[in-house]
């Protein structure tokens, strides 16, 4: 029977079930075993699967990722946990120059079936070196698949798909979603990668949300209903590739679009969405596509400053009103 579960539990189930199904699947990361994982996603898996398959690695992101890639080339299916996406920058060369390119530069003679899971996002006063989103760093790279699930159901189903594909997948979680609850189907199921999800139908405006901002956009949409603004919300879910058809269909119908991400909008994910939508929906658009992102600062520690740096559902509503031409507030 489908059950309400935490996002982090849904992830844990996906990992456990895939490890049971396929003994080439193993987990590697810092403090994912004895410590239980910095965000407790892997809690309990060490006891169940042993230290060979739940590997507590030294603090050495390059060799963690490299080990995963190398072992994937030899037929294993590693799932890496980076403690946060911020630390993945230490391993960025391995991800971009090796994981993403190996298949191509060896003319298709090698595969890299690899998943790198990592939480991103702000809101916990972790300041400049621990709080960023950075999805676009991976979205840019040919050879990678990049997803950002926002519901427990997707978290589980997409993680399973990620583990099963023969491509390297960047699996972007959000720190702020780990404690979110949602229905999770029973038994073994997968959710396809590469697909956006229409979370809410609407006629006046299409909001495309990236990662947690899709959740906020949904909240904002509910509230905007009271103001007679009927918003369609699309959860991007897949950052590479972008699933254009539902977005285009929606914008052509609503004639207005805005895009929201938690990270920096300039050169962010929202830039590509806005650029792509205007290319595809030009003749239908009644207003410029607007983008909302986090403040373009290294994340400050101070609570009021941090709050001011992250888009809120109020910010979304404010911009939405503007895009549909309501002047309800300044």
């Amino acid at each position: 029977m489908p059950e309400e579960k935490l996002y982090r539990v849904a992830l844990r189930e996906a990992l456990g079930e895939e490890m049971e199904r396929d003994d080439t699947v193993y987990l590697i990361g810092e403090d994912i075993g004895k410590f239980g994982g910095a965000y407790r996603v892997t809690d309990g898996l060490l006891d169940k699967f042993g230290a060979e398959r739940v590997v507590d690695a030294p603090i050495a992101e390059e060799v963690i990722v490299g080990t995963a890639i190398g072992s994937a080339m030899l037929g294993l299916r590693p799932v890496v946990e980076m403690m946060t996406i911020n630390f993945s920058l230490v391993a960025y060369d391995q991800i971009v120059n090796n994981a993403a390119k190996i298949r191509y530069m060896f003319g298709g003679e090698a595969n890299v079936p690899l998943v790198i899971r990592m939480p991103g996002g702000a809101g916990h006063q972790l300041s400049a070196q621990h709080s960023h989103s950075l999805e676009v760093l991976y979205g840019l790279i040919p050879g990678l698949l990049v997803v950002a699930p926002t519901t427990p159901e997707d978290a589980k189903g997409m993680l399973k798909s990620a583990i099963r594909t023969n491509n390297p997948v960047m699996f972007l979680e959000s720190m702020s979603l780990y404690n979110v609850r949602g229905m999770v189907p029973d038994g073994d199921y997968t959710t396809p990668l590469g697909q956006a999800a229409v979370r809410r139908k609407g006629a006046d405006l299409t909001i495309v949300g990236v990662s947690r901002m899709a959740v906020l956009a949904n909240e904002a949409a509910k509230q905007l209903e009271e103001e007679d603004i009927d918003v369609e919300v699309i959860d991007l879910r897949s950052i590479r590739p972008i699933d254009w058809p539902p977005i285009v269909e929606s914008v052509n119908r609503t004639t207005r679009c805005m895009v929201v991400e938690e990270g920096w909008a300039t050169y962010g994910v929202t830039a590509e969405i806005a650029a792509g939508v205007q290319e595809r929906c030009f003749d239908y658009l009644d207003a410029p596509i607007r983008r909302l992102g986090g403040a373009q600062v290294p994340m400050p520690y101070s609570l009021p400053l941090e709050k001011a740096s992250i888009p809120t559902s109020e910010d979304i509503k404010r911009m939405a009103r503007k895009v549909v031409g309501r002047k309800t507030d300044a």
Partner: protein
Amino acid sequence: MVASVKPPTAPPHPTKITPKMLELTKENRDFLLKLHRQMQFIRRFEERTQEQYTKAKIGGYCHLNIGEEATVVGGILPLQLTDYIFTSYREHGHAIARGIDPKAVMAELFGKENGTSHGRGGSMHMFDSDLRFMGGYGIVGGHLPLATGGGWAVRYKKEKDVVFCMFGDGATNIGAFHESLNFSKVFKLPVVWFCVNNRYGMGTPVEAASAVADIYKKACAYDMESIQIDGMNVREVLLKTSEIVEKTRADSEPRFIEALCYRFKGHSVVDPDKYRSTEDKEKFRKADPIVAFEHELEKAKLADEEYFKKVRMEVDAEVQDIIKYADESPEPKVADLYKYVYADEWEERPELHGDPL
């Protein structure tokens, strides 16, 4: 740095620590008791920091120095005020030992405008350019290359300062450690690499992460002088560190120190700390660097339990005041959100803020 006054708890920075100064004699009483007081102050500061975290006055990740006070005070005190310090996120005590006003440290923890980093950095990013406290950093090992650069600048300017770089045992497994040690040796940079081996990187014991458990041995790959010291003994840390620092000042050769200690609390204040055995914790608790030093002082009749009690009360009162000060300090203004991203004329360029149109 905006700290208003120099800290009352900062011990004098003697020109040079000598073995004589550390003997348990009457003559040295003042100095020794100052060391003790400093450790006790840091201990209390950290205990109250944890408490304030629980009260949600402090946020983010918050890593305490409790149990490591001998490495903190013993490591930093031998430095001249002209020397440079680069350290990690576990640095409240380091900042205080360096002489940064503890009020500014607490204000930073509270995210206030008069904190060491104007509330932008928080627990992991204390800074004071006057005191050449070049920052706490959050990427494990990521500040070692910066310390190398500090050494480069000192050598380049032909000055006689030493760069002191503090990091944990876990940091010695990351690539930046290797690159930095090698670079510092190749170019003869005046850097003292000071590893606080508290035996764990989060939940991972040193021997599970490092091919050699005696971290000081890693320096062999760089042909670098290296010692292992008892990081629970403040006098030993002080003396050995001073020797190494002065050698490095004299010949501009990098050196390595491993100080063995133990962190008494979890990795950060939210860590339930289930991965260490009670026996281990007990064992090290017994070697508490403050208690051990108190025993020494007592045995040498330089102080007694009553005195120690008085110190505890005094530092407690001081920390109370500090918390009050931090609590009453002003928050940064939201209007200043973009201040400090860029220097000079770039600070005010609106196109660098990227506000939505």
